[in-house]
């Protein structure tokens, strides 16, 4: 993948771009600050981390990895992981897939594109899955489908609610038809879990598309999304190529989906834990631990 902006003029004046000389003012180094992609204001890393990785100026939600999210949502050290060792193999001998998997594992420090387990949220015991954006953009292969299916089966057995955070580019092309079958498999598990009267809350984060949108992400009893998250079936580029016209601004954003009636609410990351606690409280059948 070509790094974005590779051919642009360097922004750092030390690289000798004379155009930028006039902006040479004492500034915080890159390691300590980051520029918000939405409002372009500089944010101190420390402040950003304290603010749940949300821009304090404009409310832009920075991408989080699965572990960061679990730390934000679960109580203290209550999270215990399930099926941590499951991972996909190159079953179809797809070219370069082994290398891609290897790179994804190095980049994300995870074995697969989803982390599953049990935890407590506001004192309520529940099963949780969080997809990992830094592992092949959270794409769903056999292992992801299997982990999520097992989590729903476990939750069914223990009559626990499931809270799921989705972020995904869709089904994993490198596993071909096998990844498509995961949509059916996970849907079956969600259905059985739900039919037994258990709660499933999905939190859609940026971006949730493709096979994940068309399966367990939109099958939840309550579906909420983070502000500004891209949620859709086909990606915007594919739609633009198909219909040969530019998409309107804000198309497929969480706000757009809320307006069209496909979301229950949009909840900022800062309020998510309280919101989930409230939902679990309202669905509680007297088993607060």
């Amino acid at each position, binding site marked *: 993948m070509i790094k974005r902006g590779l051919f642009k003029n360097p922004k750092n004046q030390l690289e000798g771009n004379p155009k930028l000389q006039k902006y040479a003012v004492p500034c915080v180094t890159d390691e300590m600050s980051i520029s918000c992609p939405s409002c372009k204001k500089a944010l101190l890393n420390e402040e950003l981390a304290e603010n749940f990785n949300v821009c304090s100026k404009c409310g832009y939600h920075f991408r989080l990895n699965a572990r960061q999210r679990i730390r934000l949502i679960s109580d203290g050290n209550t999270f215990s992981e399930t099926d941590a060792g499951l991972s996909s193999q190159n079953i179809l001998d797809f070219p370069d897939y082994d290398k891609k998997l290897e790179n994804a594992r190095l980049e994300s420090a995870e074995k697969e594109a989803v982390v599953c387990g049990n935890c407590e949220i506001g004192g309520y015991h529940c099963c949780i899955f969080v997809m990992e954006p830094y592992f092949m953009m959270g794409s769903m292969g056999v292992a992801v489908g*299997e982990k999520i299916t097992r989590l729903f089966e476990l939750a069914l057995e223990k009559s626990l609610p499931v809270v799921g955070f989705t972020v995904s580019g869709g089904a994993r092309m490198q596993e071909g038809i096998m990844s498509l*079958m995961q949509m059916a498999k996970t*849907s079956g598990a969600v259905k059985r879990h739900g039919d037994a009267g258990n709660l499933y809350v999905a939190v859609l984060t940026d971006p949730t598309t493709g096979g994940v949108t068309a399966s367990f992400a939109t099958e939840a009893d309550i579906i909420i999304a983070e502000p500004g998250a891209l949620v859709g079936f086909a990606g915007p580029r594919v739609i633009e190529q198909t219909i040969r016209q530019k998409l309107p601004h804000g198309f497929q954003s969480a706000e757009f989906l809320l307006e069209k009636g496909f979301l229950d609410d949009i909840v900022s990351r800062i309020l998510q834990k309280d919101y989930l606690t409230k939902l679990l409280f309202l669905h509680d059948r007297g088993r607060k631990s």
Partner: protein
Amino acid sequence: MICYIPIMPFALKRDEKMNAYEIVRAARAKNRPTSIDYMERIFSRFTEFHGDRRFGDDKAIVAGIAKLSGMSVTVIGIEKGHGTKEKVARNFGSAHPEGYRKALRQMKLAEKFGRPVVCFVDTAGAFCGIGAEERGQGQAIAENLMEMISLKVPVISIFIGEGGSGGALALAVSDEVWMLQNSVYSVISPEGCASILWKDASKIKEACECLKMTAADLMSLGVIEKILPEKDGLNKLCTAIKKELLASFGEKLALSSDELLERRYQKFRKIGIASVSAS
């Protein structure tokens, strides 16, 4: 009402040894029979029903009830149409959310009246456009998956041409999936795969091989249950399908609905599980 006059002769290929790319070409051939051609030959007294009761009627999906040698069945098919005018009206067999919701409504009726369901799948994929997204294409497909896996009547899906990703799966969470010898079923189009993988859409031949999308490949992966040979022509093929459907439904109707659902669940539960490694 659209007139269903097929253009003869149909292009069902006779050749046994074709590579994946040739099979993709055959599955997309212009004069290949479409869902209605099969319905006319397999069933009698087909009565079409329209609309999803929510938004509109999607002509890319044809649904109704018919007789299969004395047995009432619900028949649903993705229809590409013949001739430019009809193809446009049917959106080239790419359904909108209302199409999937229409199919689901018919399936729910089938469940109520205890009719088995037959689905014909022939689509390049669910349509992606502004309207489709606004009306929740992903949600419509997801709902079909969830409802089909727990539908209390036997369901058989037959792939007669292209089976494109979620749009095909939304009618294929069935007890048995059968494929015509020259039909394909994949998670992404070979063109899409080639452009993502090699940034070059012309490498479609390699992509066809990589995706393992032919009936023979899918049979060996355990994704489908039956391959239907095409070499004897359309009429004989339809007679064979009719016989197979009767036998299969007879067998499945003898099961209790709990047993039927458990088998269906376990079938999808097991696909590909051998490829997951635990360490």
